[in-house]
């Protein structure tokens, strides 16, 4: 078997190793096999009511769901049985696409697809969608350059003030097991959302080491109320935000936040939005459009 020049074990060593034999077991077939990916599948957090709904309960996942739907995609599959630890960079949503839909893939790669597909993190989704439905022009779908500049301001208002209020009132369920587990969920904490860093719990000049945050709850709630008031004022009776003729990324963002606020358990948050009829009506209209683009697909097949 070995060539005459190859090294071989000396006899005493071979005898010693014979006391520790190597067993090779046959492969174990699991009863569940992954179904090959034929539709683009979005991995999201579980919806509010899993039996009746496809819209996620997490704001980040819902943003991307709305983006996919409002860009004009249809027939996108949904699954929520993947834990965030299994996602890229520990953050959902991820998009699992068949290789033939990848814009940058060469033809040889597309032929070799055995159903495994490619997993894209959230920030690569717009590029993939551009490959599917065509790229956006320079104005990104807004009416003019001034509207595009204004959209930046509205994005930072939503992701700053409104998101801070949502994070503040989120029920943080930390069970004992989650403290022990080595996998931590990387949700955006309040310090990352507020523009000015909040003070530590005992003050910045106390002799105790810094721990916790002292959050100015009144200020955050006041900013949230101003934000919702100005959002409602700006929408007025338009069909899409900022007077665009077709839905844009800003509409997806606004829809995601409004939907999450209307489903949150906190009364003060919900009341601000339900007071404003135009926001509620707008959210309801967009909801039906977003919901129609998704369907639930069984990801595992029993063999």
């Amino acid at each position, binding site marked *: 078997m070995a060539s005459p020049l190859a090294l071989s074990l000396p006899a005493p060593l071979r005898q010693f190793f014979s006391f520790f034999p190597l067993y090779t077991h046959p492969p174990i077939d699991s009863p569940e096999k992954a179904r090959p990916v034929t539709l683009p599948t979005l991995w999201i957090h579980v919806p509010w009511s899993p039996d009746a709904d496809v819209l996620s309960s997490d704001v980040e996942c819902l943003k991307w769901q709305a983006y996919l739907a409002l860009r004009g995609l249809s027939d996108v599959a949904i699954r929520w049985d993947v834990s965030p630890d299994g996602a890229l960079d520990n953050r959902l949503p991820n998009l699992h696409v068949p290789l033939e839909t990848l814009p940058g893939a060469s033809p040889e790669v597309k032929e070799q697809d055995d159903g495994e597909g490619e997993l894209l993190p959230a920030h690569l989704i717009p590029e993939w969608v551009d490959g599917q439905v065509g790229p956006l022009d320079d104005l990104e779908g807004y009416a003019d*350059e*001034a509207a595009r*500049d*204004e959209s*930046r*301001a*509205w994005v*930072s*208002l939503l992701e*700053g*003030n409104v998101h801070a209020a949502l994070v503040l009132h989120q029920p943080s369920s930390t069970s004992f097991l989650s403290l022990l587990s080595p996998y931590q969920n990387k949700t*955006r*904490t309040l*310090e*990352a959302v*507020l*523009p*000015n*860093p*909040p*003070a*530590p719990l005992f*003050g*910045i*000049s*106390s002799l105790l080491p*810094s721990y916790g945050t*002292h959050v*100015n709850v*009144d*200020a955050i709630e*006041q*900013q949230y109320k*101003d*934000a919702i*008031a*100005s*959002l409602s*004022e*700006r929408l*007025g009776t338009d069909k899409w935000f900022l007077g665009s003729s077709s839905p844009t990324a800003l509409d997806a963002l606004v829809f995601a936040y409004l939907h999450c606020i209307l489903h949150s358990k906190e009364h003060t948050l919900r009341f601000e939005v339900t007071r404003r009829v135009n926001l509620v009506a707008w959210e309801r209209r967009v909801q039906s459009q977003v919901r129609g683009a998704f369907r639930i697909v069984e990801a595992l097949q029993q063999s």
Partner: protein
Amino acid sequence: MNESKLSPSLASRDVVLHVWPKHADVLSFDAGSVAALLCLQLALPGQFSLSYCANPDLSPSGQLPLLTHGLYHASGLSSILAYVRRLHYARHLDAGLSSVQAAQLTARIAHVESSYGDLVNHMLYSLQENWVDVTRPALVSMLPVPQRYYVPHRIRASHKARLEAVELWDVPEEEEDSEEPRRVVFGRRKKHKPEPEAHHFKKTFEREKVAEKARALFDVYDRLLGDHRFFMGSEIPTTLDVVFAAHSHLLLSLRLPDPLVTCALESYPRLVSHCHAVLSAAFPPNAPSPPTLQQNWLTSLRSLIERRYRLWRWGFIAGSLLATVGYLYFALSVLLVQDGRVLRLGAGGGEPADDEDEDEADGDAGAAAEAAGEHGEPEDEDEDEEAA
């Protein structure tokens, strides 16, 4: 409206604005404080006083700027702006705007506070050269002695979470000249490692990304300003002008050794002149500056209120020291007396009570006592035998 949380030492009948102290040419060392100061100067000229304090723990929410009016307080820039808007004798800065424009203003202020604020914090706290040469010495000069050793580092660490989330943390500095003196001091212990090419490219690429972000932001506001004096063609500075100019003022007046974002700003001359226009509108040349409250009366007032507690505290310490000294004195004197009796025992005459005392003698007080006791005991036994 939280009136109960404010300590009575900060109460006064007038409007007082507490901000971070001045440093070099800047009005205050924090963008929010500068914005609050400009807003009050425009809305309530001559009707408020200013207090420079470097202790953010005086504020109920732990953050400066802080506005106190009687027993009412408003902490943080947005609360201060909202309160000034509600005062009936204050000039309303956004009076000339329609409701849609006012709604857009709220969004734009949030945009400036988050994006521009991140860039300013990146310049001050993230870039190593700026931190070592300007920010840390400034903070150290403002703080009193025990705090100046640990509070600047804590302030820098508190910005880390937000800047990491927007990818503005840990951008390497321009040159490593700041490390040269250290290498000389250590002698030939550290060899100068030539920088690999890939690392150099990565540094320049990351600096370019930050400059790109800054230019994208300044493009938006340059287009919004157009050729007007203030945003939205208003006659007097609006709240958006005040907040934007506060951040620009901090960048333009602080002479930072690593001017990454300042260079980007200076390539937009209209924005630079906008900053100067807002400042000259807020501080006209012949108007008096707001009166500054000194800290001295605050500390003396506090000492008046807390003198009773100070008496009790020092009284307790003195009393416990006295008790310790008294205890030790009496313990030693009892042992000395025992020694005296023991010495007398060694000379002659035994009493059973003294035997017990010798047996109970403490180990430390008397190696001497025990030795004397040992001497005493055999003699006592002898005497007892003789007595019997």
